[in-house]
């Protein structure tokens, strides 16, 4: 299992979702991806993308004006 971080700061939705989708394609089941964003829209969009594509959201948190989502590739 590897854990990678994706810097999606300053990108507006749906670009953080697209970058997440593209990164996940390079990962294997069980790998984890931490996505760091500044668009609050990701709080809905990335979990929705995970639900329809069968991936698991492990953590959602916000700090200052950043939004961090950790997902596990399934």
């Amino acid at each position, binding site marked *: 299992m590897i854990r990678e971080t994706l810097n999606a*700061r*300053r990108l*507006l*939705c*749906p*670009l953080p979702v*697209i970058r997440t989708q593209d990164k996940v394609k390079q990962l294997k089941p069980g790998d984890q991806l931490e996505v760091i964003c500044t668009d609050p*829209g990701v709080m*809905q*969009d990335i979990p929705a993308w995970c639900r329809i594509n069968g991936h698991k959201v492990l953590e959602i948190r916000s700090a200052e004006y950043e939004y961090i989502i950790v997902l596990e590739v399934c």
Partner: protein
Amino acid sequence: MNQQKKAIALISGGLDSMLAAKTVMEQGVHVEGINFFTGFCVEGHTHAIREKDKAKPKRNNALWVAEQLGIKLHIVDVIEEYKNVLINPKHGYGANMNPCLDCKIFMVNKAKQWLVEKNFDFIITGEVIGQRPMSQRKWTMPIIAEQSGADDRLLRPLCALNLPPTLPEREGWVDREKLHSITGRSRKPQMAMAEKFGLNDYAQPAGGCCFLTDKNYSAKLVDLWQAKQTKEYELDDIMLLKVGRHIRPRPHFKLIVAREEGEGRFMEGYKREFISLKCSSHSGPLVLVDGDPSAEDLYLAASITARYGHGKNAEVVDMAITDKDGVERTIQVKPLAGETLPEGWAI
């Protein structure tokens, strides 16, 4: 035993594409969605930036539709490829800078490429004859099918009965009798169909889902091209057209004035790429200066900036000017007087 047929549906996030996909799914076809991001999609962007829109849901409607339908959605970044569609539209622009017919041909062509790569059987769109003045007309339907290369693998379930049978209908992959004959701009047939399917929450964007159909946005895009003296753009250019008040006092520079805190916060991210201004003696907006201003131009920019802050009626205000390297200096400036900006400055 017949193998289950597979269709790729163009999902915009609106009601029509949702109903088109649902109509075909009801016939036992495996459907997946595809959504193209051109950089001009209205989807969420300004809602995410502007404080006044905070109450609006920040969902991506295409993702939401896919989830309601229970299908996969593939979101494809076409920002670079789309430039040629916008800059050189074979079929021209609509009322504003919207190249709707070329855009539809482009998207269906991209879906066709995807279909070939993934071994799917046909394409679904939510097009309705007469729904849109430029791209959804009786005469545009065969043009889109032909010039996209999709030909008769392009099925429009909502208006199929008004068109010649396509391959999926002729081959019996879908039952033509269960398709529809909707025409015109009325939304009533779609709303009735949504109710029948139990779909009671869907997006109904008043001006469509593309910034290029917006008169004010289009004016800013034309101004950008005129200033650059070329019809080229980068993603940051077109993102910044969505925020702030744009003022061009001289042909070689313009100001982007944050209208509220949310926009100011978003624009902070561009301070390494633009000279920025902010009043330091009174509260006021963050302003980015796009172009190549002289010292005299910066004084003018500072006086314009001052009129949007709380010091607008002061004799002079202190204005911090920060260059792209982060070096800051402060000048004193008299706020630009007058009820309105000189004619032609506001874009």
